[in-house]
Structure formats: C-alpha cells, structure tokens
C-alpha cells in the first residue's frame, strides 16, 4: 500500500464545551480538563478555523449497548455519587469504585465521549470526512460489562462497530502507554478488526498485551501486541512503529484506521514510563495519515495534562497538514505551560531499556505472525472514491455550495507541500516533568486488579498453597533442587 505525501484533508473535530467540567475526583489522575486545554490551544493557534468543528450528540443507551451489556449501561445510567450505597454489589461487579470512581455526570461524560467517536465513525462511513478527531474518546480499557482503568464506555469499540458496517477490515492502532485491552478483547475473535497495541508490558496496568497474545479463533493473528519496556524514546519508537505498521498495512490491508493517541506515552507522564516527545508521538499520526485511509483519531490516556494538550494540539495540526509555531499562543490556560511556554518538549535523560536487539527480536516475531495472515483481497480499498461524491452532498448542505469561493481563498487551501521541519528548536525547557508521581498511582491500579473476584481475576495462578508443614521436606528439597 503506497503512502502519499501530505495533502490537506477534510478534518472533522468533535468537541463538547462541557467535557472539561467533568471531574473524576480528588487526586484522580484522569482529567477531562485536558481536552478543553487542547481545544483552547487549537483556537488560539488558528487551527480551529481550519477544520469542521462538531458538537457530538450524546450517545444513547441503545447505541452504547451495541457493545456493552444492557445491565452495565443501565447501571451507569442510574449510578450517582448520592445513591452509590444502594449499588454496592453492582459496583463491585462492574468494577466501578476505585480506579473508575462514580462522579457527577459520569453517564453524560460517557455519552459525550462515545457520542463523539460514533459520530466520527458515521462521518467517515458517509465519506463526509477523511480524518475525524475526538480527543474526548479513546477510552480503550472499558470492557463489555466492566469499567477499567478510568474507562467506562468503550467509545473506540462503538466507533469501530460503526465503521465495520461499511468497511470489511478496520485497523486499530494504540500508542497509549497502556495496553488497549478493552478493544483487543472486544475484537479478539474476529478477523475483520486488527488491533495493534504498543505498550509498556511487565508489572504494569492492565497486565495484558503479551507478545504471545495473538487473538483467538477466527481472530487468531489479528491481535498484535508490542510489549515494550521503560524509557522508549522517539528513535526507538519509530524504529518499531514504522516497520510494524507498514507490514500490517501490507498484509491486512484495512479500509479504515482508528488511532488511539493516548498521550501517557509522552516523557514525564504522571503514570507513564516512556520517554517520547510530542514530535515522536506525532510522528505516529503523521505516518498513519500518509496511508490516506479513512482515519479516526481518538484521545486516551495522558496524565500530565499540559503535555497532553501539547501533543494533541500538535497532532491536530499534523492531521490538518498545517505547521504551527513552537511558541504557544496566549490562551486561558497559558500559565499551565510554564516556564518555557513552548509547544515541544524535550525528552528526559532516563535510560531506554529497550535495546535495539530486543526491538528487533520482537519485530521478527511479529512479522512471523503476520505472515500467517491469509492474503487480504485488495478490492476493498478501491471502493472509496466511487460514491464519495454522492455521500458528500448529503452532509454538505450546511455549506453554501452554490457560491464559489474566491480564487484567492481556493489558492490558500492548496496544501503547501512542505513537510514538517524537524530542525525546529528542540532543546528548550529542560525537564519539568516529574516521574516520581508514577509510583504513586500505579499500585492503585494494581490493587484493583487484585481486588477482583477470583474467577474474574485475569491472573495465571500457579500456586496458592502455603508452604506450611514442610519443615521436614525442606532440607531434602534444597538438596535436590540445588544440586
């Protein structure tokens, strides 16, 4: 599948001005406010005016139950901080409480997040847009009837389900530092969705995402997991992202792509442990965009909110194919970006535990798996241009189409074919981000996994028995074992 140079795309952006006012609770690292910060940056960078801005409608319970179980959605709809006590049992069952707290407007928040992704998918289906962005979405941990990792409703799955109506094969890519387990699980047994997740693996939430997890049944080889270690930097990330995505595109040949842009893989994230810069993170967007497939970008993790809004602003500009200045424009939350007030951030000096050999070995193994895929017929990709015009007319009625734009303006809309300059001043600022927050939050996530009921506990139990009445055999064992 050939990639093309950047061209200016029709970009649709989904945002509800209420989203920033949902609050997970004191001390909770997930802050929907980061979406508002991104939005304000977009306005002041002048990116706002270059794309179609939509306010998504709230997803209905009916829409959400396309994936989620009825009783789970019913539960989400009815639970409130003031009636929590009545739902004790269900809260346990649905894993709502600790990591995924009950907060005011929880259901509305889920509706907006899911509504954005569903609307984006419908938009792509109608071919009314080439790139759709929903920074309020990307909640990739949510399970069919279970909340997990700050996610309640899996907007990504809902969006992909929508896309699957018109697309034979949908590719899901996840660059969040956490494994995209909710999406992977939802499509674990289907060959129509390939989930590719790049994540930190090993003693890390959610504990899934082993290299050996490759899908099941019909979906075998359609789950691709890239387990990584601490300290991934831009260079290493690109060295694994580019070949794997290229290979996936080549063998799977999707007709639509969903990219989860979790920003907790950035350097200095409160919960993350990678060392990516905004540029390195944005490169993934840039690379996927080059395939010119219907492209949905969603948010996800990201807990150092100033960096999250930086990254997502930059990635919006990448989607638009517009270059933006490194100097941040003044906005309501300008002070958050001190002391340098720059868009780009510098990596920290943390060690990258992913050696080139390690990445190479992973890559080789994944290529072996991808070789097992039956060759996808290459028809699906061609169908898009045919009915594009018809579909477009349906949705373009808001725009006055009878009136031609002045030539001057049309000229402006021609994409300048300049690529992103990498030479832009990179080294400012120094490291402001505090990695020490990481440890504080992580045990909490682990704890919840451990609190689960034994049958739900996704742990491979090897041994439970206490070594109690063994004083006699002890010495024997020592000798036999160690000899």
């Amino acid at each position, binding site marked *: 599948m050939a990639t093309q140079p950047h061209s200016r795309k029709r970009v649709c952006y*989904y945002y509800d001005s209420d989203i920033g006012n949902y609050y997970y609770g004191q001390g909770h690292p997930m802050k929907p406010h980061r979406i508002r910060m991104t939005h304000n940056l977009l306005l002041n960078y002048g990116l706002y005016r270059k794309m179609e801005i939509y306010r998504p409608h709230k997803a209905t319970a009916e829409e959400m139950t396309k994936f989620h179980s009825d009783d789970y959605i019913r539960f989400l709809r009815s639970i409130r901080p003031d009636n929590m006590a009545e739902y004790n049992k269900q809260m346990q069952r649905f894993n709502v409480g600790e990591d995924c707290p009950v907060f005011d407007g929880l259901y509305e928040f889920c509706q907006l997040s899911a509504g954005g992704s569903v609307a984006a998918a419908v938009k792509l289906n109608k071919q009314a847009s080439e790139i759709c962005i929903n920074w309020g979405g990307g909640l990739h941990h949510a399970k069919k009837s279970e909340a997990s990792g700050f996610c309640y409703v899996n907007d990504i799955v809902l969006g992909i389900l929508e896309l699957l109506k018109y697309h034979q094969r949908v590719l899901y890519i996840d660059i969040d530092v956490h494994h995209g387990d909710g999406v992977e699980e939802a499509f674990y047994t289907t060959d129509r969705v390939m989930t590719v997740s790049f994540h930190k693996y090993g003693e890390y939430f959610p504990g899934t995402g082993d290299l050996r997890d490759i899908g099941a049944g019909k979906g075998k080889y359609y789950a691709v997991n890239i387990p990584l270690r601490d300290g991934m930097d831009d260079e290493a990330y690109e060295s694994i992202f580019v070949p794997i995505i290229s290979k996936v595109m080549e063998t799977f040949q999707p007709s639509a792509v969903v990219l989860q842009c979790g920003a907790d893989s950035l350097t200095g994230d409160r919960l993350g442990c990678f060392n990516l810069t905004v540029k390195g993170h944005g490169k993934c967007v840039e690379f996927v965009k080059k395939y010119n497939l219907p492209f949905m970008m969603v948010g996800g993790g990201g807990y150092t909110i100033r960096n999250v809004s930086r990254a997502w602003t930059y990635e919006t500009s990448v989607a638009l194919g517009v270059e933006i200045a490194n100097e941040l424009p003044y906005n309501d939350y300008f002070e958050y970006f001190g002391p340098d007030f720059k868009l780009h951030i510098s990596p920290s000096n943390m060690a990258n535990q992913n050696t080139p050999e390690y990445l190479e070995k992973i890559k080789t193994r994944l290529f072996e798996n991808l070789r097992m895929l039956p060759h996808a017929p290459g028809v699906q990709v061609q169908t898009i241009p045919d009915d594009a015009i018809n579909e477009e007319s349906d949705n373009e009625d808001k725009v006055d189409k009878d009136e031609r734009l002045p030539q001057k303006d049309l000229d402006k809309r021609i994409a300048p074919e300049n690529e992103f300059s990498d030479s832009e001043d990179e080294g400012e600022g120094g490291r402001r981000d505090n990695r020490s927050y990481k440890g504080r939050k992580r045990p909490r996530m682990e704890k919840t996994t451990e609190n689960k009921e034994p049958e739900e506990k996704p742990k491979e139990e090897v041994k439970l028995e206490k070594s109690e009445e063994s004083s006699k055999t002890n010495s024997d064992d020592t000798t036999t074992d160690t000899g």
Partner: protein
Amino acid sequence: MTANMYRVGDYVYFETSSTSPYQIRRIEELNKTPSGNVEAKVMCFYRRRDLPPQLIQLADKHQCALDETNGSPTSESVLSNEQLGPKQRHQMKHRELFLSRQVETLPATHIRGKCSVTLLNETEALCSYLNKDDMFFYCLVYDPTQKTLLADKGEIRVGSRYQCDVPPLLKDGESDNRDLTETETLVWTPNHNLNDRQIDQVLVVSRSVGTFARALDCSSSVKQPSLHMSAAAASRDITLFHAMDTLHRHDYDLASAMCSLVPSSGPVLCRDEMEEWSASEANLFEEALDKYGKDFNDIRHDFLPWKTLKNIIEYYYMWKTTDRYVQQKRVKAVEAESKLKQVYIPNYNKTNPAALNNNKGVLNGNSNGTGTDPAVSLGGKACESCNTSTCTQWYAWGPSHMQCRLCQQCWSYWKKYGGLKIPTRFGDGMDFEGGIKKRSGSDVEDDKGMGHRPHRCNIGGCGKEFKLKAHLGRHYATAHGIAVRAGSPRPVMKTRTAFYLLTTALTRLSRRLCRHIMRPRHAARAPSFAINIQAVKQECAAQMVNKSQQELKQLMLYRKRNRGSVTAIASKLGHTGPPTPQWLILTDKTFLPQPEVVAFPKPPKGPDGSLLYERVPNKPEAEKIPLNNTSPSLKRRTYEDMNGIDSSSLHAPTAKRLAKDPSSSALTSLPAPTAIPISRHHASTVPPIMAGAAPLGSVPMSVPPSAVDQYQAMMAVAAASQTQLPPGLMGGPVAPRQVAQVNGKPKIAQMTRSGSGRKQFVNWMDAPDDLYFKATENSKKIRRQISSVELRRAARKPWRFLKTKLDDLTQVVVLD
C-alpha cells in the same frame, strides 16, 4: 558521576548484611528524613535462594510448561535454552528474580550499585543476560506473605460475554440509515468565503465590543478599574469562542455577525467563571480549598451552594493560572522538597568484615618455614568457587567452621548474584542460614518487617544477621549451642549431622611429626584459624623419609597421661562453692587510692540538654580549660560526686596513656563468670551460654557483651563507693579510669582517643543488641519463693547456682 546518581525507578543493589548477597530493589521513592538522611522506598525482588524450595520447583515447572506450550514460534528460545551448558544453566539461576509487590524502606546509603531487571521476553535468548553484568530477568511474581507464585500476566477473555457482535458488512448501495443530524451539530466549518484576516478582524471587533461592554457594566468596572484590565478580560477565550460561534450562526456573513455583537440590549458581554466570580466568592473558594482539598462537592455544599459543580470546576482550573495558586504551589513545593528525584551515593569502599586479613595467612604460612609455593603458603584452601589459589584479597565465606573462602572475583559475583560461579559441594551456593528455611506460621508476620531490621545474633562477636527470627533461633542452636525459645513451644534445636573423623595412621603420624606447624594447643584454643595442610603434608613427608618403620610405630603409640581420675575432676568442677578468687575480693575502701586525675571530664551541657563536645586541642595549656567547670549550674551533681574532680589535678598528663592501657583489653576479655544484671533466678543458665559464646564467636578480639556488662557493673560499684579497683585488676601501675555518666547509669567510657586527638564516640548503633530475660508466670512465682536474703546474694554473686524448687526452667528468651 551519573553512575552514582540514583533515581526513582532505578534498579539497585542494597547491602543489608555484609556477609549475605546484595538485595535487589527498585527505587520507588526517595525521601529526605528530618535528620537529613535519605530513605529509599523500594520494591523488593527476590532471588531463587530467597524462595522456599517448593516454590522453586514450581517455578521450574512453570518454565518447562511455557516452553512446551509455545510450540513452534518459541523453538528459537527453547533451542537457545538447550544450548546452555550446565555451567551456564547454573549461572542462569542466579539471574532469575521474582518480583514482589512488597515495598520496604531502606537507608539510601546502603545502595551498592545499579543493576537492570527486565521482564523476560520469550524472544530473548537467556544467554543475553549471562553475557552482561548486572542483568537480571523475572517472569513470576512472588508473594512472600502468602508464599505463592503468580505469573504477572493478564488475560484476554474469550466468550460471548466479552467479545462484541461484529455487524455484517453492508452490501453495495445498502445504507444503515444513519442520519448525521442525529449524531452531531456543526459548530464551525472552514468552507466559507472569509479569509484568515477577516476572521481575525471579527475577533478583534468582538474583543473591542467586550471591552466597551465592560466599561458600561457597573459590576465589571468595579473589578477592572483600568481599561487595560477590561481589555484583558475581554480577550479571554470565551469571547473568541463566542465570536466564532456568532460568525458561524450568521453563515459567515461579516456584517450580520458584527451587528449581532451589538444588539439593541447593549454590547455583548461574555464572561467566564474567572470573571464571573466576585472577590469574596474567590476568597470563599480558597478557604474551602484549604479546608476540603479538591473535593468540589463538599466545597459546593458547604461554601458555595449557589454555584453549580461545573461552575466550581471551571473556576478551579482557571484559578490555577492565577498568582495566588502559584504562591500556594510554592508553599507546596517547599513541602515536597523532602521527596527527592535522585540521590548521589558515592562508591562504597569500606572493607567488608568478611574480608580476610592477609597477614594472618602469611603468618601461618611462614610458620612452617619451608618456603613453599607462595600461593600455598597463603594459607590452606583455594577459592571455593573458581579454585584459584592466588588472589590479593580473600573473603571468608560460608559457615565459620567450614573455613571456606572466596577470591575477590568470586566474592563480588556472590554478592551480586547470590551464588557461586561454579556449582560446588554446597549445591547452588545456598547460603547456610538461608538453607535453613522458615518453619512456623508465626514467622510470616516477622517476614513482613524484614529488611527493616534483620535479626542479629547478639552473642559476643558473632553479629550474624538473619531475615527471620527462626533462622536466628537455628543459628543460636547450631552455632552457639543455645536453645532459644521465641514463645513458640516447638523446639528449634535440630541436631547437627553427625560426622566421623577418621584418623588414619598417617594422620596420627603427621600430628606428631608436624606439631610445630599444627600447633595443636593453639589450634584447640583458636579453632577458627586455618591449618596449612599443604605445609603439614610436605613436612610430614620430609620427616618420614628420615625415620625407620620402628621409629614411626613408636611415634604412633598412644601415651596415656595421668591427669587424675575423671570423678575427682568432676567433683572438683562441680563444687559449688569455690573459693572466691583473689581478684574478686574487694579491697577495703579506705585502702583504695583516690583518682588523681579525671581522664575525660564530661563536657558541659548545652541549653537543649545535649552535651557540648569540643575538639580537644593538643596543646597542654589547652587542657587547662576546665570544661566541666564552665557552667557549674548545669553540671550534674552525681557526676561530680562520683568522679571526685579535683581541678588542681587537671594538669596531669594521664589521659593519653589510658587508651593504650593494657588493662582495658585484658579486662574486657576476662573469661569471668558472667554477671548479667538481669533476672536472677535464671542466672543458673547463663554461664554455659556465654561460655559457649565466647570461644565460638569467630572474632576473638571482640568483647562479649556479658563481660562488658560485668565490667560496667564493677566500675559502677567502684565509682559509686568512691573507690578504685584493686591494682591487680588494673594490671600494672594504677591508671585511673574514668566512668562516664550517662543517664545516671554507669557505663563504660564512651570516648576513645585516636591518634588525631579527636574524640570519637562509640556509636549507639554499634552497641550489642539488648538481651532480655522474659519473666514468665513461673519465673515470677519462683522469684517470690526466694527469700530476700537469697535474692540479694544472687544479685551479688550472679554466677552462683541458685537453688530453686523448679530447676527445669532452663530457657533463655531473646527478644528484640
């Protein structure tokens, strides 16, 4: 520099005991304690040797199972596994760790270097770990409290309860009847005929309108007295968003959009929460934030009920951009200063107590006088691991009776990887106390606290540390022959494996012939010194050549020596009332010489009650300064009384000699009947313990605490009665000794003088652990039965056997 900089998240070696291997930990937090030390909160990794043997077998099984289930894709790793030789397999075991969720706090000064721990990935060849130093891997999680192993692996579940129903692909021309108007509302489109400049102009106009509106608005003019402030307020994002929305609503028609900014009701005024809130509301909010933290529900409920929660949250995020927040943050930053990101720990280069003194070896070697190979002459054994016999620095390793040692290289390998490079007769290099595994359930609780404070053997000079109390108990039993009970009725004593020493004719012969090398008496007294076997062999062979068969036979004959009958000796030994040794008879007080000089007068007290120590100047005139006389009001009366300070005698230069006074060492190593000033009726059991402890403790120079105690007691008595100990006891010319007074308790002099003339203090950390006697119901009962006369006598002569009706209570309880 960077190598010694330790950051949060680093994997490091920790040394908590000098003789056992390092512990591997990951730094989770670095905190500065009020005293200025740095404490590291660390996550524990366990070695194979730390695990109970059953779990190790389990881990091995798990590994095998993994290899099998993986079939073809993992063939590579299986293959590479098979390529490992037995030696590599052995070393591989040292590289495997087990993650635990256990967190402990250790002083950062115990860090001994960095290492790397990674989750084993099956694509990796195990050799890749062996080839690099300080690399470890883990694949299982160990729970030390539950004694379980888990694979740290989540699971993607399969079933209709977990997967979604994938909708069928619509046929060509078919539609899902989705209506975009149901899913979204357009707020802005770039498809209009305005250019960037025109949009900018609209934005400027809307700001201007906003400024004007603020000028007209009374409430605003109070808040923003200057035009600048009004303009700034009018430039906030809310005005801009409103302008964009207006433009969109008016179909990007500039004229109508601008007109709508100034409707008949007056210019449009867009205010966000930041501006909306009055100063008093802002104060209320800050007050509330102070009180409740960021619990906005409570804040709203108790402080700002007229605001909605959304108002408050929006305001909060804007308030964070203000100066007031920045100020607050600074305060917080100061508070958070105790949390460090990194810490610099210099290389540790104190010698390990296990390091063997080379001189001793040389001395031994020289004693044979035959000038053999220098390597051999370095004393006995070769390196337990690599078998080399030449090395610059040797380390004692293993149980002291085994006399094993390691060369420098193998020692650092042992410290880092917890095993020997090459498998030996000790199996996997199981450390000996480690080999004795935990036993009772009650130990599990102890387990949690381990690492914080190891259980230390407090028998004189031993000082070995153990993770578990039970291990210490075993150690007491095996190494010192003491039965220690820790409350549990189960016996901890386990008989040692019997061994049988076969003395061949040649052995016996060599004992006779090479007496000068073996020095049997010396060896009997100092069983911990190695005998140079090589030298003995050589000497024996050399001597045998010169002797006839007959002579040799003669040598081997056993000559009985008459030492009197056993019964006679036994009855003599068992005699309860031996004559009090002469040195124990107290000289009459009146005959005792008075101290002329006080060697180390106590320094004055500071206002906070601490002692003000000062550098002692070397110049004699400096010594004139009567430190303790400077603040007579602060001086303790008892001190003066006890030392009988005579300021006129302060000039006498006696202090320096004191430290070298042979009596001090002679005294402390007195093999005296111990007088532990503790529970009297148990005293009967004490002497055998201490008697056993002193020779068994492998460091003969150290002071058995019992002796110290006794000495203290004696000094106390002497001091209290204003007397001196008899000259005989002090050994030679009477040198007055000083008794420092600490908390009213007599204690051995705490200061010693080193060459630099600086006072040095025995750190309380180095003091031997406390030894307690636990008074049980029974013992209390017995005490009550003893007459007060008896009790007093027992206190005076604690070594004497105290007759009680219950003689079976022969247990010492060591607590900590």
